[in-house]
């Protein structure tokens, strides 16, 4: 049971490629690998703990302000993460601070709280949150890998395309500027969703 809760969101029910949640931030933070990884880690922690907390509170939350309570919990966690990073991991926090707003509005968090945490026990809810964060992270890392490699010729900031290949140095190669721009993120996400779902095709559509 717990194994399925953990593995399904990563492959079979991936939040980005199958449930189409969190696409917006997957487009925004994937120009480079490093911020994409920081974003993936932060979203994983925030989804995990907000699902845990809301699952603990699930029998007390008044129905009419349900969404507000969820937002308060998520926003509080994001601010806590941001404050702690600012104090103990300054460099990471500088990368992350841009994306704090994006974490709060990340559809995956609210979607999973509504769909899972409010009707399940705390431990499965925590596992579900972590797994959905990781499923999101896999897509993010895959997209940013291609965008950084083909758009900037680097990975994690280190140059991987030999300098002498470049046209400015007398070679034949030029970075593809389109990969840096947002439209290419959409195309890469589309291709990854296609590849990802090709093997799931029958399972997803025939049921």
């Amino acid at each position, binding site marked *: 049971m717990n194994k399925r809760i953990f593995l399904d969101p990563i492959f079979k029910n991936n939040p980005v490629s199958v449930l189409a949640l969190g696409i917006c931030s997957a487009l925004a*933070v994937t*120009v*480079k690998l490093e*911020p994409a990884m920081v974003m993936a880690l932060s979203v994983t922690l925030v989804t995990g703990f907000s699902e845990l907390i809301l699952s603990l509170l699930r*029998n*007390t*939350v*008044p*129905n*009419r*302000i349900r969404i*507000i*309570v969820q937002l*308060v919990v998520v926003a*509080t966690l994001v*601010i*806590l993460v941001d*404050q*702690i990073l*600012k*104090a*103990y991991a*300054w460099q990471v926090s500088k*990368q992350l*601070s*841009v994306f704090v707003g994006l974490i709060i509005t990340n559809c995956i968090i609210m979607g999973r709280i509504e769909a899972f945490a409010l009707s399940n026990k705390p431990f499965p809810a925590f596992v579900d949150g972590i797994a959905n964060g990781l499923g999101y992270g896999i897509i993010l890392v895959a997209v940013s890998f291609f*965008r*950084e490699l083909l*758009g*900037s010729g680097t990975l994690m900031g280190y140059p991987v395309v030999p300098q002498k290949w470049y046209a*400015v140095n007398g070679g034949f190669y030029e970075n593809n*500027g389109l990969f*840096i*721009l947002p439209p290419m993120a959409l195309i890469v996400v589309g291709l990854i969703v296609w590849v990802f779902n090709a093997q799931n095709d029958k399972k997803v559509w025939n049921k």
Partner: protein
Amino acid sequence: MDNRKRNGNVYTFIYAAIMVIVVAALLSFVSQVLKPRQVANMMAEKQQSILRSVHLEGNLYERYIRDTVVGPAHLALYICTLEDGTRKYIIPLAGKGLWGPLRGYLALNGDFRTIYGAVFDHDAETPGLGAEITTAAFSDSFRGKSLYQADRFVSLSILKPGKAASNPNAVDGISGGTLTSRGVENMIRESLEPYLPFFKHYE
């Protein structure tokens, strides 16, 4: 708890009130506890930025840098005295990028005309595009550039990538980061202008 009571007005109000108080107390407590460390981080970063603008790194701020103010407007100025006795004058920059504020330091040689070094930072520029202004590749291209044409202050132009190589008054911008590059250009001109009378006075 039964559902009818859970949906009542009184319960909802009390729940919301308690939640807000708990969250506010928690956040202000955490903020108070962590503040000193955050301020220390910020100061350390500022000192490192100033050092990097004169191509130094490490725990050298006290040894090389002296801060002062100049002119009737008390403009901030950092003076760096290098080992060989030459002085570099570091001017803080502030301006607007595409999404948020830009900052930086510009180190001038003793003639107040040519650039010795520069560093830039930002709050919210796009990673991979505008955010590239923080890279050494960009800031190194400022070294040796001139702010003057003959005796006229022209500041620096930031041009399309590949156009600036031989122009002493221009540097290459960031591809895909045109608006941020333009922000850097405006920031340099606007931040330097108040200092011009002071430069004249020194010449």
